[in-house]
């Protein structure tokens, strides 16, 4: 039985933040869950996916976040407790249904998880999604630790049902990817089949209806504001005339700092965990007892601006600071020493940080950037694209996935990366705005996510570029999740449909469609050249399973290659494809037999044919 399905209240277990969130949803009786995977949210959905295979919980990997939210919205309006989860930028994709779902509301509890990524450990921006709660009028919870995340999602479902409004649970990477002990609670029974009751005056958002709904939405948020005032998640610890307002992980850094600085008797901390609407009266009362107040929050000055406005309403002129040159930055993530130092600065505490180790004489160490895996088919495809486009003035729009790493030399495929699906649509723009050749790359999961619409646009507007779809049969970057093109039988999960990319692309009206096997290097280069010579939109589908995935399901058995004595040290293998299995020993190129999987890309480009299968 999946460890998060165990009906063992009181059991103490170490969980990843994302596991705790999944368990909290199960304890809340969630019956319906949808997602598009994205770090740092991915393990929440992975665990729900696994649990759905051994319970009556419905779970789906939807095509993108907009689809996931719409699927979830219907379930939550059919009386089922519904959970929709995504990373922060995913909520941008889902923003269209989000903003109007606020008007419609729900008939059963619905929680939307946004997993923000301050410091961009694996994201293209560090946007602060708390603004979506304010923007769209959603109640919002923000946990400060793993155990609280589990409690909050349960409270979020209850609140959603009380208000008939979806609730946002906003986490940051340091909650999602922290481990701590969590105590299991009772599991509420799931209601897995619902019924939709027609209610056009609530559910059909034509202008006349929506105008009424907007009024009701504001009334619901007034009610939420009242609940926020007495929420157990909005609490004050300590006492004194120095005030700190801190949310999320910053609250814990502040707690530790106050203790480390020995100012427990002087500082009180307000921790807003139900942070939209903020508890206005509680904050005003808090401020009234303070000489000065420091607001500690990663990201934008979301609370700071609100707290300042509340102080103005209360006629308080005390100093309230947060994001200033001397104190906190909107950049990156905070850490304990930073918060300790800023608290000391703001309240005028004498504090000397412990002396740092002198690292000026530490020798330089070469960096260890992430790289495409040994045997990754993207490397072969990128090599072929480069060869096919040799001598041309080319732009390579790329997209979000493992293959984004191809932008680094020596492959250097990736000139413009903005968002999921952006490779296709930016190709449209580049091909019209310039006379440069445009050859773009997109992963299969990303193509389904939001590349298709760009391709339809390209066909209709008669753009001129070559799109290479990297069909590796899985959503690789986030940990091998399914997508609509995946053969689910290979996953041991029959009963799914499958969308064939080649047929799909042809049906969209793309006139030049070809398929390559990227490890057949010569053929791939020739096919790419033909596609690039075509005047109009051409698509090349590079078909080869993700090597990590293929190894894990025993689809591919590694067979290492070696560099034989025929090697004349051209080093084309190292200089042109940079596979991490290569190393140099005593001036000679070698292949690490432990990591080489035998893709034979290097063997095909070696001018001396010196790379051969390793003799057993």
């Amino acid at each position, binding site marked *: 039985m999946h460890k998060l399905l165990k009906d063992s209240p009181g059991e103490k277990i170490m969980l990843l933040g994302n596991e705790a969130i999944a368990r909290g949803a199960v304890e809340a009786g969630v019956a319906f869950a949808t997602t598009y995977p994205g770090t740092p949210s991915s393990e929440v959905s992975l665990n729900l996916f696994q649990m759905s295979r051994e319970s009556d919980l419905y779970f789906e990997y939807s095509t993108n976040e907009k689809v996931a939210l719409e699927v979830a919205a219907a379930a939550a309006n059919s009386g089922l407790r519904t959970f929709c989860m995504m990373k922060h930028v995913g909520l941008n994709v889902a923003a269209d249904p989000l903003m109007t779902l606020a008007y419609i509301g729900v008939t059963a509890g619905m929680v939307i998880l946004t997993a923000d990524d301050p410091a961009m*450990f694996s994201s293209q921006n560090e946007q602060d999604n708390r603004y979506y709660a304010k923007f769209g009028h959603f109640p919002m919870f923000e946990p400060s630790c793993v155990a609280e995340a589990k409690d909050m999602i349960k409270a979020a479902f209850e609140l959603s049902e009380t208000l008939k409004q979806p609730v946002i649970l906003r986490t940051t990477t340091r909650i999602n990817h*922290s481990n701590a002990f969590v105590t299991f609670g009772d599991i509420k029974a799931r209601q897995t089949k619902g019924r939709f009751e027609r209610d056009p005056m609530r559910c059909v958002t034509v202008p006349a209806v929506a105008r009424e709904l907007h009024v009701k939405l504001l009334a619901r948020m007034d009610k939420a504001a009242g609940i926020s005032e007495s929420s157990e998640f909005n609490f004050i610890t300590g006492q004194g005339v120095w005030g700190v307002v801190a949310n999320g992980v910053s609250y*814990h850094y502040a707690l530790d700092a106050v203790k480390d600085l020995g100012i427990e008797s002087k500082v009180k901390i307000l921790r807003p965990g139900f942070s939209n609407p903020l508890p206005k009266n509680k904050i005003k009362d808090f401020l009234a007892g303070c000489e000065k107040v420091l607001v500690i929050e990663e990201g934008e000055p979301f609370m700071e601006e609100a707290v300042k406005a509340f102080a103005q309403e209360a006629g308080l002129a005390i100093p309230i600071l947060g994001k200033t040159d001397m104190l906190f930055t909107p950049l990156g993530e905070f*850490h304990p020493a930073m918060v300790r130092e800023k608290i000391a600065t703001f309240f005028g505490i004498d504090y000397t940080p412990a002396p740092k*180790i002198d690292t000026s004489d530490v*020798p*330089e160490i070469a960096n260890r950037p*992430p790289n495409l895996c040994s045997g990754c088919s993207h490397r072969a495809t990128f090599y072929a694209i480069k060869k096919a486009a040799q001598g041309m003035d080319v732009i390579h729009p790329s997209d979000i996935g493992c293959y984004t790493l191809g932008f680094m030399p020596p492959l250097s495929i990736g000139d413009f990366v903005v968002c999921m699906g952006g490779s296709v649509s930016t190709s449209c723009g580049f091909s019209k705005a310039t006379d440069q050749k445009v050859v773009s790359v997109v992963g299969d999961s990303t193509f389904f996510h939001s590349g298709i619409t760009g391709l339809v646009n390209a066909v209709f507007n008669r753009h001129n570029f070559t799109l290479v779809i990297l069909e590796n049969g899985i959503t690789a*970057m986030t940990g091998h999740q399914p997508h609509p093109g995946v053969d689910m039988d290979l996953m041991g999960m029959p009963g799914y449909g499958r969308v064939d990319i080649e047929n799909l692309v042809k049906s969209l009206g793309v006139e030049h469609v070809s398929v390559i096997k990227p490890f057949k290097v010569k053929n791939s280069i020739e096919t790419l050249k033909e596609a690039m010579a075509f005047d109009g939109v051409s698509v090349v589908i590079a078909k080869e399973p993700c090597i990590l995935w293929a190894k894990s399901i025993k689809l591919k058995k590694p067979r290492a290659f070696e560099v034989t004595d025929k090697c004349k040290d051209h080093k084309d293998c190292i200089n042109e494809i940079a596979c991490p299995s290569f190393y140099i020993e005593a001036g000679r190129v070698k292949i690490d037999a432990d990591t080489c999987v035998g893709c034979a890309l290097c063997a095909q480009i070696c001018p001396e044919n010196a790379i051969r299968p390793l003799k057993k």
Partner: protein
Amino acid sequence: MKPLRMIIVAVGGQGNLLASKVLGEAALIEGVEVRMSEIHGMAQRGGVVESAIIFGDASSSIISDGEADILLGFEPAETLRAIGRCSANTRVITNTATLPPFTVAIGKGNYPEVNEIKQILKEKTAGLVAIDAMALARKAGSPMSVNIVLLGALIQTGALGFSKENVKEAIKRRIKPALVEMNLKAFDLGFEAAAAGTV
């Protein structure tokens, strides 16, 4: 318990997340509070993987530069790269078996001599235990047990204050039954090597 802050640095695939989980389980057995933080995602495509583990009476789950009490490094250059996480009071335990970054492997980037790495770590911190965990892991039965060899060395130093028995119990709880025996051997080899000084 007074807070004790530990950083583990490794190269993706070396098993530092499992090592962290074993220590977390050991903390539960010891009755010590623990919080851990790790970095997933892009970092795992051959990059550096770092875990922070905070034992005892603190609330944060990450560790600032200069504030680690223990640095456990799975690869010598990565241990040295993380020296900014240490203070003069930090205890350092490192593997001496190298995994050169790709640029170094192909003769382009700089990789300090292991002896130089050891010398710097020894001079600047409160103590260094350096063992060839890869050789010991192979001796135990699998190169995959480097992580548990290093846990053995860590426990021998006493820096963490956990008992050998409790950590072994944690290994039994956290590692697949088929691999427990090999990993217990790996743990003992690491423990003995640390006791004998550097290998």
